[in-house]
């Protein structure tokens, strides 16, 4: 069923009391890729990471790690997995090197010299003897990545690994993760930083409200995705929305067909779709006697993400709305 997959998740469900964190999540992560796991805050990314590492138990669903079923009691399956989950966690009074030594004492044994090599890799060799309590957030993050790589894992699970890294650190991390994937390892990276995922990932899965809403190679997503934004008179807004809502859609079933916003002079209607839909939309509006004063297309990952996850800044519950839309 899951040949060629480093990670396969089927129907994963998890509730915390009355809150549903995961609602039937499916994931298919091929071997040897960087997989970008995208989702807004609270979508279920960290819950997924915790389930994948046996920290919590699912209410339903199955997980296959590296081609074999994984349940929380199959802890030895994690010997081939490296993980950085949420914020990096260390003994603050120990040095970076001592923390890695302590970490190496649990789980799979590590190769001699591995700790020094990793400290060098993440650029902490010069501060390896200092207490972690004196580290910046970015340094702790780098040490966390070194900890995840300790056992030379075949599957790497990284939760928001770019947190706290400076631009040079982000570039170095990106290069390292790409090299790891090129060497046959699988890298699963959760993030809400779209630009980072776009530059890093070969395959992207987008999660919203605990469910996978899209999973595809990054090129496919960028080719398929996008938004056409139509500027028109506020007087035509409602009629335009009803016309555009009737167009054949190539969007996710649970995504809104159109979204509209109204300013003082102009109204905007957004329709999910690529650049090729612009003329179709223009024609449909013109045939109804509505003439657009402008049409813009946007094929960024951001637009697709916002459309698929329903987190448009226009004001969804639970979304940071920004100063401009607080009224």
């Amino acid at each position, binding site marked *: 069923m899951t040949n060629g997959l480093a990670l396969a998740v089927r129907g994963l469900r998890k509730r*915390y009391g009355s809150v549903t964190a995961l609602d039937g999540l499916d994931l298919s992560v091929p071997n040897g890729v960087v997989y970008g796991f995208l989702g807004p805050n609270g979508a279920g990314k960290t819950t997924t990471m*915790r389930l994948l*590492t*046996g*920290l*919590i*138990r699912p209410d339903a669903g199955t997980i296959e790690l590296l081609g074999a079923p994984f349940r929380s009691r199959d*802890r*030895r*399956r*994690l*010997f081939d*997995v490296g*993980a950085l*989950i*949420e*914020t990096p*966690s*260390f*003994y*603050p*009074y*120990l040095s970076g090197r*001592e923390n890695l*030594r*302590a*970490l*190496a*004492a*649990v*789980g*799979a044994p590590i190769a001699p010299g591995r700790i020094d090599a990793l400290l060098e890799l993440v650029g902490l060799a010069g501060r390896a003897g200092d207490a972690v309590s004196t580290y910046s957030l970015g340094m702790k993050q780098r040490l966390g990545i070194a*900890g995840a790589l*300790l*056992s030379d894992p075949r599957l790497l699970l990284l939760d928001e690994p770019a947190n706290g890294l400076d631009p040079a650190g982000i570039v170095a991390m990106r290069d390292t993760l790409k090299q790891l994937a090129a060497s046959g390892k699988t890298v699963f990276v959760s993030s809400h930083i779209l630009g980072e995922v776009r530059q890093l990932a070969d395959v992207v899965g987008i999660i919203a409200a605990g469910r996978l809403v899209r999973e595809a190679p990054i090129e496919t997503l960028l080719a398929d995705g996008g938004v056409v934004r139509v500027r028109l008179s506020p007087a035509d807004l409602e009629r335009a929305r009803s016309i555009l809502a009737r167009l054949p859609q190539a969007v996710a079933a649970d995504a809104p067909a159109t979204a509209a916003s109204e300013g003082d002079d102009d109204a905007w209607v957004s329709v999910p779709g690529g650049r090729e839909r612009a003329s179709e939309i223009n024609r449909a509006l013109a045939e109804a006697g509505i003439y657009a004063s402008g049409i813009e297309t946007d094929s960024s990952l951001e637009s697709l993400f916002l459309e698929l996850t329903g987190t448009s800044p226009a004001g969804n519950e639970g979304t940071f709305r920004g100063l401009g839309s607080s009224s």
Partner: protein
Amino acid sequence: MRLLLAGIRKLLFRPASWITLGVLAGLMGLIFVAVGSRADQLSNSPENAAALQLVTFPVAYDAVLSFVVGLGGLLAVIFGAAVAGSEWTWGTLKNAVARGESRTWYVVISFGSVVVLLAVGVVLAFAAGVIAAFIGASIAGVPTDGLTDRATLESLPATLLRGWFGIVEQGALGFAIATLARSQLAGIGAGIALYFGEQFSTLFLPDVVKYLPFHVAQAAVGLTARAFGGDGGGGQAVARLPSDVALLLVGTWLIGAVVVSALFTQRAEITG
């Protein structure tokens, strides 16, 4: 073995390990030296005779040991709670589990490293106490011939072993409480509250208290009530259990606390 060695190494590097020992040794030093210094001002009074017992060997050995088990027990609760609670508070338990380590094994071995450190701590604290008592005796002008009392020295290893066992049991209670609380601070707070709660409950439940963990730990050592600090300051005399029975109960409390810690960790959802 690598897990145990790593655990011991972590605790040796941990400032709290040495601060705890320093507090115990420092307080003992202060008290014994103070007793020695005040001896001449209290001359010919009954209080003076009682106080001088503290620095008169071989009784001073009992006083030191009673202090180590009494106040040391409270510090062991705090230390055990700090070690277990920090695994949750700092998120380092999460790292171990995510690396495929057995939760039960991790908890048991983590406690094992506490047991080793407590053994080192008991020996060092006892040595510091004896030195302090000797200094106090010298200041007070009390003869120190009893320092080499053969009968006392022969029984000392067994008494120290029982004291260490009692300390370990009290450390296990702190460890279990902090595990259940999933927090270093909450564990320490609850451990201290339990310790003093048990002491205060001697006022209301004298027949029950003798079976409770802190009292059995002291009873297991088999010290006489003449020693300082042995009753934990509860205020009301509590009939102590025979030391062998108390030792058995210490073992029961100890195993129970470790089992509770392991079972809880095994079943817990680690979300922090």
